[in-house]
Protein backbone atom coordinates (compact mmCIF):
# COMPACT_ATOMS: atom_id res chain seq x y z
CA UNK A 1 0.00 0.00 0.00
CA UNK A 2 2.82 2.32 0.98
CA UNK A 3 4.67 1.60 -2.25
CA UNK A 4 1.53 2.12 -4.33
CA UNK A 5 1.19 5.56 -2.78
CA UNK A 6 4.79 6.35 -3.54
CA UNK A 7 4.43 5.28 -7.16
CA UNK A 8 1.39 7.53 -7.55
CA UNK A 9 3.33 10.35 -5.90
CA UNK A 10 6.07 10.09 -8.54
CA UNK A 11 4.01 11.79 -11.24
CA UNK A 12 3.43 15.16 -9.54
CA UNK A 13 7.03 15.08 -8.31
CA UNK A 14 8.32 14.65 -11.85
CA UNK A 15 6.08 17.45 -13.14
CA UNK A 16 7.44 19.70 -10.39
CA UNK A 17 11.03 18.77 -11.23
CA UNK A 18 10.50 19.39 -14.94
CA UNK A 19 9.01 22.79 -14.16
CA UNK A 20 11.93 23.71 -11.90
CA UNK A 21 14.44 22.61 -14.52
CA UNK A 22 12.53 24.57 -17.16
CA UNK A 23 12.60 27.76 -15.11
CA UNK A 24 16.23 27.17 -14.14
CA UNK A 25 17.56 26.91 -17.69
CA UNK A 26 15.55 29.90 -18.80
CA UNK A 27 17.34 31.85 -16.08
CA UNK A 28 20.58 31.21 -17.96
CA UNK A 29 22.02 34.35 -19.51
CA UNK A 30 21.51 34.50 -23.27
CA UNK A 31 19.74 31.88 -25.33
CA UNK A 32 20.60 28.76 -27.28
CA UNK A 33 21.47 30.74 -30.41
CA UNK A 34 23.87 33.25 -28.84
CA UNK A 35 27.10 31.39 -29.50
CA UNK A 36 26.45 31.00 -33.22
CA UNK A 37 27.25 33.44 -35.98
CA UNK A 38 25.19 36.56 -35.61
CA UNK A 39 21.98 36.13 -37.62
CA UNK A 40 22.00 37.90 -40.98
CA UNK A 41 19.07 40.09 -40.04
CA UNK A 42 16.75 40.71 -37.11
CA UNK A 43 14.05 39.07 -39.25
CA UNK A 44 15.90 35.77 -39.32
CA UNK A 45 16.45 35.87 -35.61
CA UNK A 46 12.77 36.53 -35.02
CA UNK A 47 11.81 33.59 -37.22
CA UNK A 48 14.27 31.37 -35.40
CA UNK A 49 12.79 32.32 -32.03
CA UNK A 50 9.27 31.86 -33.36
CA UNK A 51 10.09 28.44 -34.79
CA UNK A 52 11.08 27.18 -31.36
CA UNK A 53 8.31 29.20 -29.66
CA UNK A 54 10.88 31.10 -27.61
CA UNK A 55 8.98 34.37 -28.13
CA UNK A 56 6.02 33.22 -26.04
CA UNK A 57 5.64 33.77 -22.29
CA UNK A 58 7.45 31.11 -20.29
CA UNK A 59 4.34 29.51 -18.79
CA UNK A 60 2.88 28.99 -22.24
CA UNK A 61 6.17 27.49 -23.41
CA UNK A 62 6.09 25.14 -20.46
CA UNK A 63 2.52 24.11 -21.20
CA UNK A 64 3.53 23.33 -24.78
CA UNK A 65 6.48 21.29 -23.53
CA UNK A 66 4.36 19.36 -21.05
CA UNK A 67 1.82 18.62 -23.75
CA UNK A 68 4.64 17.21 -25.90
CA UNK A 69 5.85 15.09 -22.99
CA UNK A 70 2.39 13.54 -22.63
CA UNK A 71 2.71 12.38 -26.22
CA UNK A 72 6.19 11.01 -25.53
CA UNK A 73 7.95 13.86 -27.32
CA UNK A 74 10.90 15.57 -25.65
CA UNK A 75 11.00 18.26 -28.32
CA UNK A 76 13.77 19.21 -30.74
CA UNK A 77 17.30 19.97 -29.61
CA UNK A 78 18.11 23.64 -30.12
CA UNK A 79 21.85 23.15 -30.48
CA UNK A 80 22.02 19.99 -32.54
CA UNK A 81 19.48 20.97 -35.20
CA UNK A 82 17.68 18.22 -37.08
CA UNK A 83 18.02 15.98 -34.04
CA UNK A 84 15.30 15.54 -31.47
CA UNK A 85 16.20 15.17 -27.81
CA UNK A 86 14.81 11.63 -27.92
CA UNK A 87 17.20 10.77 -30.78
CA UNK A 88 20.22 12.02 -28.86
CA UNK A 89 19.20 10.20 -25.68
CA UNK A 90 18.54 7.04 -27.66
CA UNK A 91 22.04 7.27 -29.16
CA UNK A 92 23.93 8.16 -25.97
CA UNK A 93 22.04 6.24 -23.30
CA UNK A 94 23.14 2.70 -24.30
CA UNK A 95 26.79 3.77 -24.15
CA UNK A 96 26.42 5.48 -20.77
CA UNK A 97 24.33 2.57 -19.49
CA UNK A 98 26.92 -0.03 -20.37
CA UNK A 99 29.84 1.99 -19.03
CA UNK A 100 27.89 2.76 -15.85
CA UNK A 101 26.85 -0.86 -15.39
CA UNK A 102 30.44 -2.03 -15.82
CA UNK A 103 31.68 0.52 -13.28
CA UNK A 104 28.88 -0.53 -10.91
CA UNK A 105 29.88 -4.17 -11.16
CA UNK A 106 33.51 -3.22 -10.58
CA UNK A 107 32.62 -1.10 -7.54
CA UNK A 108 30.52 -3.88 -6.01
CA UNK A 109 32.94 -6.63 -6.95
CA UNK A 110 35.88 -4.87 -5.32
CA UNK A 111 34.13 -2.87 -2.60
CA UNK A 112 31.96 -5.53 -0.97
CA UNK A 113 34.72 -8.13 -0.40
CA UNK A 114 37.16 -5.42 0.69
CA UNK A 115 34.75 -3.96 3.25
CA UNK A 116 33.78 -7.43 4.49
CA UNK A 117 37.40 -8.54 4.79
CA UNK A 118 38.61 -5.41 6.63
CA UNK A 119 35.71 -5.58 9.10
CA UNK A 120 36.32 -9.23 9.91
CA UNK A 121 40.00 -8.49 10.57
CA UNK A 122 39.25 -5.36 12.62
CA UNK A 123 42.37 -4.02 14.34
CA UNK A 124 44.85 -6.17 12.40
CA UNK A 125 47.21 -5.10 9.64
CA UNK A 126 44.78 -6.43 6.99
CA UNK A 127 42.23 -3.92 8.29
CA UNK A 128 44.66 -0.96 8.21
CA UNK A 129 45.96 -1.81 4.75
CA UNK A 130 42.50 -2.46 3.29
CA UNK A 131 40.95 0.65 4.84
CA UNK A 132 43.84 2.76 3.55
CA UNK A 133 43.26 1.33 0.08
CA UNK A 134 39.56 2.22 0.28
CA UNK A 135 40.39 5.77 1.42
CA UNK A 136 42.90 6.19 -1.40
CA UNK A 137 40.23 5.02 -3.85
CA UNK A 138 37.92 7.80 -2.65
CA UNK A 139 40.62 10.45 -2.67
CA UNK A 140 42.14 9.90 -6.10
CA UNK A 141 39.64 11.72 -8.33
CA UNK A 142 38.98 10.46 -11.86
CA UNK A 143 40.55 13.67 -13.09
CA UNK A 144 43.88 12.42 -11.66
CA UNK A 145 43.46 8.68 -12.18
CA UNK A 146 42.30 8.91 -15.82
CA UNK A 147 45.31 10.84 -17.20
CA UNK A 148 47.70 8.66 -15.17
CA UNK A 149 46.22 5.45 -16.54
CA UNK A 150 46.22 6.81 -20.08
CA UNK A 151 49.84 7.89 -19.82
CA UNK A 152 51.14 4.69 -18.27
CA UNK A 153 49.01 1.85 -19.58
CA UNK A 154 47.90 3.24 -22.91
CA UNK A 155 50.68 5.46 -24.21
CA UNK A 156 53.82 4.18 -22.54
CA UNK A 157 53.18 0.43 -22.33
CA UNK A 158 50.46 0.25 -25.00
CA UNK A 159 48.44 -2.38 -23.14
CA UNK A 160 45.10 -0.71 -23.76
CA UNK A 161 43.66 1.62 -26.40
CA UNK A 162 43.99 5.30 -25.51
CA UNK A 163 40.39 6.27 -26.17
CA UNK A 164 37.12 5.60 -28.00
CA UNK A 165 34.40 3.04 -27.35
CA UNK A 166 34.58 0.03 -29.61
CA UNK A 167 35.76 -3.33 -28.24
CA UNK A 168 35.55 -4.70 -24.66
CA UNK A 169 39.25 -3.89 -24.50
CA UNK A 170 38.37 -0.20 -24.81
CA UNK A 171 36.16 -0.40 -21.74
CA UNK A 172 38.84 -1.41 -19.23
CA UNK A 173 40.45 1.95 -18.49
CA UNK A 174 37.20 3.97 -18.34
CA UNK A 175 35.64 1.37 -16.05
CA UNK A 176 38.61 1.52 -13.69
CA UNK A 177 38.70 5.31 -13.71
CA UNK A 178 34.99 5.62 -13.08
CA UNK A 179 34.60 2.71 -10.68
CA UNK A 180 37.49 3.21 -8.26
CA UNK A 181 35.84 6.04 -6.31
CA UNK A 182 32.61 4.09 -5.92
CA UNK A 183 34.51 0.94 -4.96
CA UNK A 184 36.10 2.91 -2.11
CA UNK A 185 32.72 4.26 -0.98
CA UNK A 186 31.13 0.80 -1.07
CA UNK A 187 34.05 -0.72 0.86
CA UNK A 188 33.75 1.89 3.63
CA UNK A 189 29.97 1.51 3.91
CA UNK A 190 30.27 -2.27 3.97
CA UNK A 191 33.02 -2.05 6.62
CA UNK A 192 30.90 0.10 8.91
CA UNK A 193 27.73 -1.92 8.32
CA UNK A 194 29.59 -5.11 9.14
CA UNK A 195 31.10 -3.68 12.36
CA UNK A 196 27.70 -2.43 13.56
CA UNK A 197 26.04 -5.76 12.79
CA UNK A 198 28.71 -7.86 14.49
CA UNK A 199 27.98 -5.99 17.73
CA UNK A 200 24.26 -6.77 17.72
CA UNK A 201 22.63 -9.33 19.97
CA UNK A 202 21.39 -11.78 17.37
CA UNK A 203 25.02 -12.44 16.41
CA UNK A 204 25.83 -13.27 20.03
CA UNK A 205 22.82 -15.58 20.06
CA UNK A 206 24.02 -17.26 16.88
CA UNK A 207 27.45 -17.74 18.43
CA UNK A 208 25.89 -19.13 21.62
CA UNK A 209 23.95 -21.61 19.53
CA UNK A 210 27.31 -22.87 18.31
CA UNK A 211 26.97 -21.96 14.63
CA UNK A 212 30.17 -21.96 12.64
CA UNK A 213 31.88 -18.57 12.20
CA UNK A 214 31.57 -18.75 8.40
CA UNK A 215 27.85 -19.35 8.61
CA UNK A 216 27.44 -16.48 11.09
CA UNK A 217 29.36 -14.03 8.92
CA UNK A 218 27.98 -14.97 5.53
CA UNK A 219 24.41 -16.01 6.33
CA UNK A 220 23.45 -13.83 9.28
CA UNK A 221 25.68 -10.77 9.39
CA UNK A 222 26.14 -10.06 5.69
CA UNK A 223 22.42 -9.78 5.04
CA UNK A 224 22.04 -6.84 7.43
CA UNK A 225 25.50 -5.37 6.96
CA UNK A 226 24.87 -4.85 3.26
CA UNK A 227 21.90 -2.51 3.90
CA UNK A 228 23.91 0.77 3.96
CA UNK A 229 25.48 -0.23 0.64
CA UNK A 230 22.02 -0.97 -0.67
CA UNK A 231 20.72 2.51 0.26
CA UNK A 232 23.75 4.09 -1.38
CA UNK A 233 23.43 2.02 -4.54
CA UNK A 234 20.28 3.90 -5.66
CA UNK A 235 21.89 7.34 -6.07
CA UNK A 236 25.14 5.70 -7.15
CA UNK A 237 23.48 3.85 -10.04
CA UNK A 238 21.58 6.96 -11.10
CA UNK A 239 24.86 8.90 -11.21
CA UNK A 240 26.72 6.17 -13.06
CA UNK A 241 24.06 5.29 -15.61
CA UNK A 242 23.36 8.83 -16.82
CA UNK A 243 26.98 9.35 -17.73
CA UNK A 244 29.87 11.24 -16.24
CA UNK A 245 31.52 14.09 -18.03
CA UNK A 246 35.15 13.73 -16.96
CA UNK A 247 35.55 10.08 -17.90
CA UNK A 248 33.59 10.38 -21.13
CA UNK A 249 35.58 13.43 -22.12
CA UNK A 250 38.98 11.95 -21.23
CA UNK A 251 38.34 8.76 -23.20
CA UNK A 252 36.26 10.34 -25.96
CA UNK A 253 33.24 8.14 -25.22
CA UNK A 254 29.98 9.22 -26.90
CA UNK A 255 27.80 9.02 -23.77
CA UNK A 256 25.22 11.27 -22.17
CA UNK A 257 27.53 12.98 -19.64
CA UNK A 258 29.09 15.12 -22.33
CA UNK A 259 25.64 16.14 -23.57
CA UNK A 260 24.48 17.00 -20.05
CA UNK A 261 27.35 19.42 -19.55
CA UNK A 262 27.39 20.89 -23.05
CA UNK A 263 23.66 21.49 -23.17
CA UNK A 264 23.77 23.29 -19.81
CA UNK A 265 26.67 25.42 -21.04
CA UNK A 266 24.90 26.22 -24.34
CA UNK A 267 21.45 26.89 -22.87
CA UNK A 268 19.99 24.10 -25.00
CA UNK A 269 16.67 24.36 -23.13
CA UNK A 270 14.83 21.24 -24.23
CA UNK A 271 17.93 19.07 -24.02
CA UNK A 272 18.66 20.09 -20.41
CA UNK A 273 15.10 19.51 -19.24
CA UNK A 274 14.98 16.15 -21.02
CA UNK A 275 18.22 14.99 -19.39
CA UNK A 276 17.19 16.28 -15.95
CA UNK A 277 13.93 14.34 -16.27
CA UNK A 278 15.78 11.21 -17.32
CA UNK A 279 18.03 11.46 -14.27
CA UNK A 280 15.13 12.18 -11.94
CA UNK A 281 13.07 9.22 -13.22
CA UNK A 282 16.06 6.90 -12.82
CA UNK A 283 16.86 8.17 -9.32
CA UNK A 284 13.30 8.03 -8.02
CA UNK A 285 12.57 4.61 -9.46
CA UNK A 286 15.87 3.22 -8.20
CA UNK A 287 15.27 4.63 -4.71
CA UNK A 288 11.85 3.00 -4.73
CA UNK A 289 13.42 -0.32 -5.72
CA UNK A 290 16.07 0.09 -3.01
CA UNK A 291 13.47 0.69 -0.31
CA UNK A 292 11.48 -2.29 -1.52
CA UNK A 293 14.53 -4.56 -1.34
CA UNK A 294 15.32 -3.11 2.09
CA UNK A 295 11.92 -4.33 3.27
CA UNK A 296 12.63 -7.81 1.95
CA UNK A 297 16.10 -8.07 3.50
CA UNK A 298 15.39 -6.62 6.94
CA UNK A 299 12.22 -7.99 8.53
CA UNK A 300 12.31 -5.22 11.17
CA UNK A 301 11.68 -2.48 8.61
CA UNK A 302 8.03 -1.64 8.09
CA UNK A 303 6.71 1.19 5.97
CA UNK A 304 3.18 2.35 6.46
Amino acid sequence: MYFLKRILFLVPLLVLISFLAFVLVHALPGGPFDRERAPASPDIERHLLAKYHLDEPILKQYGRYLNGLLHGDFGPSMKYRNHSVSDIIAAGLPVSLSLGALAFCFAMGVGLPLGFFTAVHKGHWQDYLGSLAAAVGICVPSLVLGPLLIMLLAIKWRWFPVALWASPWHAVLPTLTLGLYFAGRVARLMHEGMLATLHSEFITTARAKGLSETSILLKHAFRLAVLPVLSYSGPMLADLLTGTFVVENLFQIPGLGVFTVNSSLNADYTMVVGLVLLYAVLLLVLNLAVDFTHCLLDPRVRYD
Partner: protein
Amino acid sequence: MTELLHLSPNQRAWRRFRRNRGAAAALLVLLGLMALVLLWPLCGLAPAAALLPKAMTHAPNTLSDEPFAPPGWEHWCGTDAHGRDLLSRVCHGARISLLVGLVGAAVSLVIGVLWGAVAGYGGGKWDSVMMRCVDVLYAMPAVVFVIVLVTAINARLEKWQAGPHGLSEEKAHWLHMAGLFVGLGAVSWLTMARIVRGQVLSLRRRPFIDASRVLGASHARILWRHILPNVYGVIIVYLTLMIPAIILYESFLSYLGLGIQPPQASLGSLMASGAAQINPIRIYWWLIVFPGAVLALTLLALTFVGDGLRDAFDPQAD
Protein backbone atom coordinates in the same frame (compact mmCIF):
# COMPACT_ATOMS: atom_id res chain seq x y z
CA MET B 1 36.00 6.84 33.53
CA THR B 2 35.69 8.76 36.79
CA GLU B 3 38.66 11.04 36.09
CA LEU B 4 36.95 12.16 32.86
CA LEU B 5 33.77 13.39 34.51
CA HIS B 6 35.07 16.91 35.07
CA LEU B 7 35.53 17.33 31.30
CA SER B 8 32.87 18.64 28.95
CA PRO B 9 31.72 16.34 26.11
CA ASN B 10 33.77 18.40 23.65
CA GLN B 11 36.94 18.06 25.75
CA ARG B 12 36.40 14.32 26.00
CA ALA B 13 35.96 14.17 22.21
CA TRP B 14 39.24 16.03 21.71
CA ARG B 15 40.99 13.52 24.01
CA ARG B 16 39.62 10.62 21.99
CA PHE B 17 40.70 12.33 18.77
CA ARG B 18 44.30 12.73 19.98
CA ARG B 19 44.47 9.06 20.96
CA ASN B 20 43.49 8.08 17.39
CA ARG B 21 46.98 8.01 15.86
CA GLY B 22 45.93 7.87 12.22
CA ALA B 23 43.70 10.92 12.52
CA ALA B 24 46.25 12.87 14.55
CA ALA B 25 48.93 12.14 11.94
CA ALA B 26 46.55 13.24 9.19
CA LEU B 27 45.90 16.48 11.07
CA LEU B 28 49.65 17.10 11.30
CA VAL B 29 50.07 16.43 7.57
CA LEU B 30 47.23 18.80 6.83
CA LEU B 31 48.63 21.56 9.05
CA GLY B 32 52.08 21.06 7.54
CA LEU B 33 50.67 21.31 4.03
CA MET B 34 48.76 24.45 4.92
CA ALA B 35 51.84 26.05 6.49
CA LEU B 36 53.97 25.19 3.46
CA VAL B 37 51.42 26.51 1.03
CA LEU B 38 50.83 29.72 2.98
CA LEU B 39 54.50 30.46 3.63
CA TRP B 40 55.76 29.57 0.14
CA PRO B 41 55.31 33.08 -1.36
CA LEU B 42 57.70 34.40 1.33
CA CYS B 43 60.56 32.48 -0.31
CA GLY B 44 60.36 34.79 -3.30
CA LEU B 45 60.92 37.96 -1.21
CA ALA B 46 64.32 39.64 -1.43
CA PRO B 47 65.87 38.80 2.00
CA ALA B 48 64.90 35.11 1.82
CA ALA B 49 65.64 34.72 -1.89
CA ALA B 50 69.34 35.46 -1.39
CA LEU B 51 69.72 32.55 1.02
CA LEU B 52 67.57 29.89 -0.65
CA PRO B 53 68.32 27.78 -3.74
CA LYS B 54 67.06 29.41 -6.93
CA ALA B 55 64.45 26.70 -7.52
CA MET B 56 62.50 27.83 -4.45
CA THR B 57 62.18 31.44 -5.49
CA HIS B 58 60.18 31.26 -8.74
CA ALA B 59 56.93 33.19 -8.89
CA PRO B 60 53.85 31.23 -10.04
CA ASN B 61 53.05 33.52 -12.97
CA THR B 62 56.48 34.41 -14.36
CA LEU B 63 56.86 33.20 -17.93
CA SER B 64 60.19 31.84 -19.15
CA ASP B 65 61.47 30.56 -22.48
CA GLU B 66 61.88 26.95 -21.47
CA PRO B 67 58.42 25.32 -21.75
CA PHE B 68 58.01 21.67 -20.71
CA ALA B 69 61.35 21.50 -18.91
CA PRO B 70 61.45 18.19 -17.02
CA PRO B 71 62.07 18.27 -13.26
CA GLY B 72 65.69 19.18 -12.51
CA TRP B 73 67.94 21.46 -10.46
CA GLU B 74 66.52 24.67 -11.85
CA HIS B 75 62.83 23.65 -11.54
CA TRP B 76 62.24 20.88 -9.01
CA CYS B 77 58.88 19.98 -10.50
CA GLY B 78 59.54 21.05 -14.09
CA THR B 79 57.75 23.77 -16.02
CA ASP B 80 54.40 23.93 -17.82
CA ALA B 81 53.40 24.84 -21.38
CA HIS B 82 54.26 28.52 -20.81
CA GLY B 83 57.54 27.85 -19.04
CA ARG B 84 56.12 28.66 -15.60
CA ASP B 85 57.64 26.89 -12.60
CA LEU B 86 55.30 24.05 -11.67
CA LEU B 87 56.32 23.83 -8.00
CA SER B 88 55.27 27.38 -7.27
CA ARG B 89 52.11 26.91 -9.32
CA VAL B 90 51.18 23.80 -7.34
CA CYS B 91 51.67 25.71 -4.07
CA HIS B 92 49.57 28.57 -5.40
CA GLY B 93 46.91 26.13 -6.65
CA ALA B 94 46.78 24.26 -3.35
CA ARG B 95 46.27 27.55 -1.53
CA ILE B 96 43.35 28.47 -3.77
CA SER B 97 41.86 24.97 -3.59
CA LEU B 98 41.98 24.95 0.21
CA LEU B 99 40.44 28.42 0.30
CA VAL B 100 37.64 27.34 -2.06
CA GLY B 101 37.04 24.22 0.02
CA LEU B 102 36.90 26.10 3.31
CA VAL B 103 34.71 28.99 2.18
CA GLY B 104 32.45 26.80 0.01
CA ALA B 105 31.92 24.43 2.92
CA ALA B 106 31.19 27.39 5.21
CA VAL B 107 28.53 28.70 2.79
CA SER B 108 26.86 25.30 2.54
CA LEU B 109 27.13 24.99 6.31
CA VAL B 110 25.23 28.23 6.90
CA ILE B 111 22.48 27.37 4.41
CA GLY B 112 22.20 23.74 5.50
CA VAL B 113 22.18 24.40 9.23
CA LEU B 114 19.67 27.24 8.98
CA TRP B 115 17.35 25.27 6.71
CA GLY B 116 17.58 22.08 8.74
CA ALA B 117 17.26 23.80 12.11
CA VAL B 118 14.23 25.85 11.10
CA ALA B 119 12.53 22.83 9.52
CA GLY B 120 13.21 20.60 12.51
CA TYR B 121 12.30 23.24 15.09
CA GLY B 122 9.21 24.44 13.22
CA GLY B 123 7.97 20.89 12.75
CA GLY B 124 4.61 19.93 11.25
CA LYS B 125 3.66 21.75 8.08
CA TRP B 126 6.88 23.81 7.90
CA ASP B 127 8.94 20.70 8.25
CA SER B 128 7.21 18.75 5.50
CA VAL B 129 7.22 21.67 3.03
CA MET B 130 10.88 22.48 3.60
CA MET B 131 12.05 18.89 3.46
CA ARG B 132 10.02 18.20 0.30
CA CYS B 133 11.98 21.07 -1.28
CA VAL B 134 15.18 19.25 -0.33
CA ASP B 135 13.82 16.01 -1.83
CA VAL B 136 13.02 17.73 -5.11
CA LEU B 137 16.48 19.31 -5.30
CA TYR B 138 18.04 15.93 -4.52
CA ALA B 139 16.38 14.47 -7.59
CA MET B 140 18.02 17.00 -9.91
CA PRO B 141 21.50 16.30 -11.24
CA ALA B 142 23.89 18.56 -9.31
CA VAL B 143 26.06 19.04 -12.40
CA VAL B 144 23.33 20.89 -14.27
CA PHE B 145 22.45 22.91 -11.21
CA VAL B 146 25.98 24.08 -10.50
CA ILE B 147 26.73 24.94 -14.14
CA VAL B 148 23.58 27.02 -14.48
CA LEU B 149 24.20 28.78 -11.18
CA VAL B 150 27.85 29.62 -11.86
CA THR B 151 27.21 30.79 -15.44
CA ALA B 152 24.31 32.96 -14.29
CA ILE B 153 26.44 34.53 -11.55
CA ASN B 154 29.33 35.13 -13.97
CA ALA B 155 27.09 36.79 -16.53
CA ARG B 156 25.69 39.09 -13.86
CA LEU B 157 29.23 40.01 -12.82
CA GLU B 158 30.31 40.73 -16.40
CA LYS B 159 27.35 43.00 -16.88
CA TRP B 160 28.29 44.79 -13.67
CA GLN B 161 31.86 45.13 -14.77
CA ALA B 162 30.87 46.61 -18.12
CA GLY B 163 28.37 48.97 -16.45
CA PRO B 164 28.86 52.61 -15.53
CA HIS B 165 30.76 51.82 -12.31
CA GLY B 166 33.30 49.61 -14.08
CA LEU B 167 35.13 47.43 -11.59
CA SER B 168 38.88 47.09 -11.51
CA GLU B 169 40.44 43.84 -12.73
CA GLU B 170 41.41 42.90 -9.18
CA LYS B 171 37.93 43.45 -7.77
CA ALA B 172 36.26 41.59 -10.62
CA HIS B 173 38.56 38.66 -9.99
CA TRP B 174 37.60 38.50 -6.32
CA LEU B 175 33.93 38.84 -7.19
CA HIS B 176 34.23 35.97 -9.63
CA MET B 177 35.72 33.85 -6.88
CA ALA B 178 32.95 34.87 -4.49
CA GLY B 179 30.43 33.80 -7.12
CA LEU B 180 32.16 30.43 -7.29
CA PHE B 181 31.98 30.06 -3.50
CA VAL B 182 28.28 30.81 -3.47
CA GLY B 183 27.61 28.48 -6.38
CA LEU B 184 29.51 25.59 -4.83
CA GLY B 185 27.98 26.15 -1.40
CA ALA B 186 24.49 26.42 -2.84
CA VAL B 187 24.57 22.95 -4.42
CA SER B 188 26.03 21.01 -1.50
CA TRP B 189 23.92 21.94 1.53
CA LEU B 190 21.21 19.30 1.09
CA THR B 191 22.78 16.51 3.14
CA MET B 192 23.71 18.93 5.92
CA ALA B 193 20.09 20.16 6.09
CA ARG B 194 18.79 16.59 6.40
CA ILE B 195 21.21 15.69 9.15
CA VAL B 196 20.66 18.84 11.21
CA ARG B 197 16.89 18.55 10.83
CA GLY B 198 16.95 15.00 12.16
CA GLN B 199 19.00 16.02 15.20
CA VAL B 200 16.89 19.09 15.96
CA LEU B 201 13.68 17.12 15.62
CA SER B 202 14.77 14.76 18.39
CA LEU B 203 16.16 17.56 20.60
CA ARG B 204 13.12 19.78 20.43
CA ARG B 205 10.92 17.49 22.56
CA ARG B 206 13.46 17.25 25.40
CA PRO B 207 12.50 18.60 28.85
CA PHE B 208 15.30 21.21 28.95
CA ILE B 209 13.82 22.90 25.89
CA ASP B 210 10.41 23.01 27.56
CA ALA B 211 12.10 24.43 30.65
CA SER B 212 13.67 27.33 28.79
CA ARG B 213 10.41 28.00 26.96
CA VAL B 214 8.59 28.18 30.28
CA LEU B 215 11.24 30.63 31.48
CA GLY B 216 10.25 32.88 28.58
CA ALA B 217 13.08 32.38 26.09
CA SER B 218 12.33 33.41 22.52
CA HIS B 219 12.45 30.86 19.67
CA ALA B 220 15.65 32.42 18.31
CA ARG B 221 17.32 32.16 21.70
CA ILE B 222 16.26 28.54 22.19
CA LEU B 223 17.58 27.61 18.75
CA TRP B 224 20.85 29.49 19.14
CA ARG B 225 21.70 28.86 22.79
CA HIS B 226 20.17 25.48 23.53
CA ILE B 227 19.66 23.48 20.36
CA LEU B 228 22.60 24.38 18.11
CA PRO B 229 25.33 23.72 20.76
CA ASN B 230 24.02 20.17 21.00
CA VAL B 231 24.40 19.68 17.25
CA TYR B 232 27.96 21.06 17.02
CA GLY B 233 29.64 17.66 16.96
CA VAL B 234 27.65 16.42 13.99
CA ILE B 235 28.12 19.73 12.18
CA ILE B 236 31.91 19.74 12.62
CA VAL B 237 32.18 16.17 11.37
CA TYR B 238 30.18 16.83 8.23
CA LEU B 239 31.98 20.10 7.63
CA THR B 240 35.32 18.27 7.52
CA LEU B 241 33.92 15.72 5.12
CA MET B 242 32.32 18.48 3.02
CA ILE B 243 35.62 20.28 2.35
CA PRO B 244 37.13 17.51 0.20
CA ALA B 245 33.84 17.16 -1.67
CA ILE B 246 33.86 20.88 -2.51
CA ILE B 247 37.54 20.83 -3.54
CA LEU B 248 36.64 18.00 -5.91
CA TYR B 249 33.66 19.94 -7.25
CA GLU B 250 35.85 22.94 -7.93
CA SER B 251 38.34 20.76 -9.80
CA PHE B 252 35.48 19.47 -11.93
CA LEU B 253 34.33 23.01 -12.68
CA SER B 254 37.91 23.99 -13.53
CA TYR B 255 37.99 21.10 -15.96
CA LEU B 256 34.99 22.67 -17.68
CA GLY B 257 36.65 26.09 -17.65
CA LEU B 258 34.09 27.48 -15.19
CA GLY B 259 36.26 27.39 -12.09
CA ILE B 260 39.24 29.55 -11.18
CA GLN B 261 40.19 31.69 -14.18
CA PRO B 262 43.77 31.84 -15.52
CA PRO B 263 46.41 33.06 -14.79
CA GLN B 264 45.19 32.06 -11.30
CA ALA B 265 45.30 28.33 -10.72
CA SER B 266 43.73 25.73 -8.49
CA LEU B 267 44.81 22.10 -8.21
CA GLY B 268 41.88 21.22 -10.45
CA SER B 269 42.79 23.67 -13.19
CA LEU B 270 46.41 22.50 -13.07
CA MET B 271 45.16 18.92 -13.52
CA ALA B 272 42.94 20.02 -16.38
CA SER B 273 45.76 21.77 -18.22
CA GLY B 274 48.02 18.77 -17.61
CA ALA B 275 45.38 16.43 -19.04
CA ALA B 276 45.07 18.68 -22.08
CA GLN B 277 48.78 18.16 -22.85
CA ILE B 278 48.49 14.38 -23.13
CA ASN B 279 49.72 13.28 -26.56
CA PRO B 280 51.10 10.06 -27.99
CA ILE B 281 54.53 11.53 -28.81
CA ARG B 282 55.91 13.05 -25.65
CA ILE B 283 54.79 12.33 -22.10
CA TYR B 284 54.82 15.31 -19.74
CA TRP B 285 54.23 13.17 -16.67
CA TRP B 286 55.16 15.89 -14.19
CA LEU B 287 52.19 18.04 -15.24
CA ILE B 288 49.88 15.28 -13.99
CA VAL B 289 51.83 13.65 -11.19
CA PHE B 290 52.68 16.66 -8.99
CA PRO B 291 49.30 18.45 -8.88
CA GLY B 292 47.56 15.09 -8.72
CA ALA B 293 49.66 13.91 -5.79
CA VAL B 294 49.08 17.11 -3.82
CA LEU B 295 45.34 16.96 -4.57
CA ALA B 296 45.09 13.33 -3.49
CA LEU B 297 47.19 13.96 -0.37
CA THR B 298 45.05 16.93 0.66
CA LEU B 299 41.83 14.99 0.17
CA LEU B 300 43.22 11.97 2.02
CA ALA B 301 44.35 14.05 5.01
CA LEU B 302 40.97 15.80 5.20
CA THR B 303 39.09 12.51 4.97
CA PHE B 304 41.14 10.94 7.76
CA VAL B 305 40.70 13.99 10.00
CA GLY B 306 36.94 13.86 9.29
CA ASP B 307 36.78 10.15 10.14
CA GLY B 308 38.74 10.73 13.34
CA LEU B 309 36.38 13.54 14.37
CA ARG B 310 33.37 11.38 13.66
CA ASP B 311 34.69 8.59 15.87
CA ALA B 312 35.63 11.11 18.57
CA PHE B 313 32.18 12.71 18.65
CA ASP B 314 30.39 9.36 18.61
CA PRO B 315 28.25 9.45 21.79
CA GLN B 316 28.73 5.70 22.32
CA ALA B 317 32.53 5.96 22.29
CA ASP B 318 33.24 6.00 26.03
